[in-house]
């Protein structure tokens, strides 16, 4: 009997229902399906999937345990390498990572590694997470700046090595983008909280309301701690820099998503933070952030939600699953279209956007075709709300307040592959070093930095 060519389907909330609620869209594998899916794994000797995983999870090993029905053991294998499996099992772009390397791709679809990871993490959470073993203390202290995936991973790994770890977070909640950016229907906040709980159980302390560079300086942290890791992310929203961008009704993706996710504006007035959503909403950009914006707008009651993107479908940077979900939900895609001006009424409220049609030209430095405007193709679209999701830049606060730290031309902190900056004892990783990337890459950076910090502490 040959292997089944396709992944087992995961049950989902039907589109017509889910666009009216903020509940999670995919519902997870039932036990029998997970076991069947796990049996599709060929247990290849050369383990290509593991090489595709930035946090080096022993993928075939945990899948084997699922196939055998030994879920507890499977969780153990998973958790030796990742502290955030329920998160990764939901938002990781597997198609470019582990699943992109799967041998089964030669005959059909890869093993649904992401779904299996999620299955295990959910299984463990339902059962009650086993408190981790806390190793003996080394007496060394590490300060981590930012409680996003990079900082949390670095903290968790260092704690497992016996170091005493304190995270300093500017906001009032942990998780970074996981909390303020990615919506509830894709990553329930309870799940982020329970993963953070686990890291705290490892002995990591998280201090909120501390903006490093303002409330305390890096220099002060360096005096008190043996090493510092900077994981402050790419929080600076980019704007289009076209006329009318400051009209009422134009939001950056970050403002829109922070209001809705972290501040829970979708529950206004039970929660105090408001959000306004018009009938027709246009989101500019086509990455994960843009899909999240467009889908959130629908759930807040928009009648029509558009994605406006200057390149074609092929270049859209979002995860395949997000684009698929967006289409199922009725998001309209206006491709090869670029905004040139926002138009407002006499009260300064957005009412339309002027766009221009684009065509693809020569490939640019990213290898994607450069979009070029088609002269005379301008047209106007009536819209009530505009969401700008064209990317974020590294947060400049730390580098501004630490003049001798080496910074690249996009404001990113320059590090070697193990997160070492030009200053001994100061490490960095995640979006602050790479520019806006992915959760798993941020986690991988946190993990490698933890190892480098451990080495550094031992050599001191």
């Amino acid at each position, binding site marked *: 009997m040959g292997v089944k060519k396709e992944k087992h389907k995961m049950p989902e909330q039907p589109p017509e229902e889910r666009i009216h609620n903020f509940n999670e869209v995919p519902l997870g594998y039932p036990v029998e399906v997970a076991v069947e899916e796990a049996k599709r794994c060929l247990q290849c000797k050369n383990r290509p999937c593991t090489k595709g995983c930035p946090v080096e999870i022993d993928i075939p090993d945990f899948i084997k345990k699922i196939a055998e029905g030994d879920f507890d053991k499977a969780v153990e294998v998973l958790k030796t390498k990742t502290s955030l499996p329920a998160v990764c099992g939901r938002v990781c772009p597997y198609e470019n990572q582990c699943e992109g390397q799967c041998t089964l791709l030669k005959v059909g679809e890869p093993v649904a590694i992401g779904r299996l990871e999620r299955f295990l993490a959910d299984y463990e959470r339902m059962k009650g997470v086993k408190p981790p073993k806390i190793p003996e203390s080394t007496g060394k202290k590490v300060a981590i700046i930012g409680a996003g995936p990079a900082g949390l991973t670095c903290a968790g790994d260092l704690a497992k090595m016996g170091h005493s770890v304190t995270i300093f977070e*500017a*906001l*009032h909640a942990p998780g970074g983008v996981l909390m*303020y950016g990615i919506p509830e229907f894709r990553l329930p906040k309870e799940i982020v909280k329970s993963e953070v709980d686990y890291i705290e159980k490892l002995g990591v302390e998280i201090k*909120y*309301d*501390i*903006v490093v560079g*303002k*409330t*305390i300086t890096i220099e002060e942290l360096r005096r008190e701690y043996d090493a510092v890791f900077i994981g402050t992310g790419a*929080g*600076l*929203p980019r*704007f289009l*820099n076209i006329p009318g*961008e*400051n009209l*009422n009704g134009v*939001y*950056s993706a*970050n*403002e829109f998503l*922070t*209001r809705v996710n972290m*501040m*829970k504006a979708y529950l*206004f*007035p*039970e*929660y*105090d*933070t*408001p959000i*306004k959503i018009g009938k027709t909403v246009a989101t500019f950009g086509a990455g994960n952030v843009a899909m999240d914006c467009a889908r959130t707008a629908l759930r807040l009651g928009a009648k029509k939600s558009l994605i406006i993107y200057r390149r074609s479908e092929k270049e859209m940077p979002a995860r395949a699953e997000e684009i698929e979900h967006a289409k199922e939900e009725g998001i309209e895609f206006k491709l090869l279209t670029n905004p040139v001006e926002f138009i407002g009424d006499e*009260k*300064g409220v957005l009412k339309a956007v002027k766009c221009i049609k684009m065509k693809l030209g020569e490939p640019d430095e990213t290898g994607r075709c450069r979009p070029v405007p088609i002269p005379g193709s301008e047209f106007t679209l009536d819209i009530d709300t505009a969401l700008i999701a064209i990317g974020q830049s590294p*947060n*400049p*606060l730390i580098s501004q307040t630490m003049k001798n730290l080496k910074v690249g031309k996009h404001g990113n902190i320059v590090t070697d592959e193990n997160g070492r900056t030009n200053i001994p004892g100061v490490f960095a990783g995640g979006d602050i070093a790479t520019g806006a990337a992915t959760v798993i890459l941020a986690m991988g950076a946190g993990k490698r930095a933890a190892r480098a910090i451990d080495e550094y502490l031992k050599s001191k």
Partner: protein
Amino acid sequence: MYEILEKKTLSENVKLMRIHAPLVAEKAKAGQFVMLRIDEKGERIPLTIADYDRKKGTVTIIFMEVGKTTKQLGTMEAGDKILNFVGPLGQPSEIEKFGTVVMVGGGVGIAPLYPIVRELKKAGNYVISILGARNKSLLMLEEEIERFSDEIHICTDDGSKGVKGFVSDVLQKLIDAGKKIDVVWAVGPVIMMKVVSDLTRKYGIRTVVSLNPIMVDGTGMCGSCRVSVGGETKFACVDGPEFDGHLVDFDNLMLRNQRFVEEEKHACKLLERRGI
């Protein structure tokens, strides 16, 4: 959690609170602000630091009860705790010896003006303060500001205290009298800052204003606080809150500050219904 150590009522809807926040107090400088959130369901709002005491580890805030959050905050008492209190945020005021500075404060804007007055006086400036409000009961901190001023002028719209008129009238008189003014600071309602900036522009007098756009995080992450300054978009929470008054697009700021008026009204109504 951050404890309210002291609460004073300055006028019917203006309250002063001293908050225990040692880390903020340690770094606070004139011109900066904090973001606070009262409870789990609260919104994050910015309030300018009105004073700080590094030794005691306290930060003073003064606020007018205008929206849901400030109204709710106004009902809290000494001993109560605020869930989040982050700062100091934004760029501090530029304190140096300019010569003669005119410090214009309007209404609740008088509170954040106070530490700037004090620091500028300590830096050796000749300080002329002009405080104005709609009526007498909305004036505040007159004694404190007077202590650090070489001259003080008070005015009210209805003439209930000081001269009857606007702060800009008083400023105009100073200019007409031939006073050589090096810098003007204007902190208060947007319309006041606009009028003062329009006036000083004519005479080429450098004018610093402190802006109060709607904020969410206060750390430069969302752009809710963006303002147009000299045709460029700036984030008031990290690039400001102080800007060159001659370059600020006040009309846009006024419109942007109207973004959520309806929602705010609705929330206030619900609060009233709960008897607060």
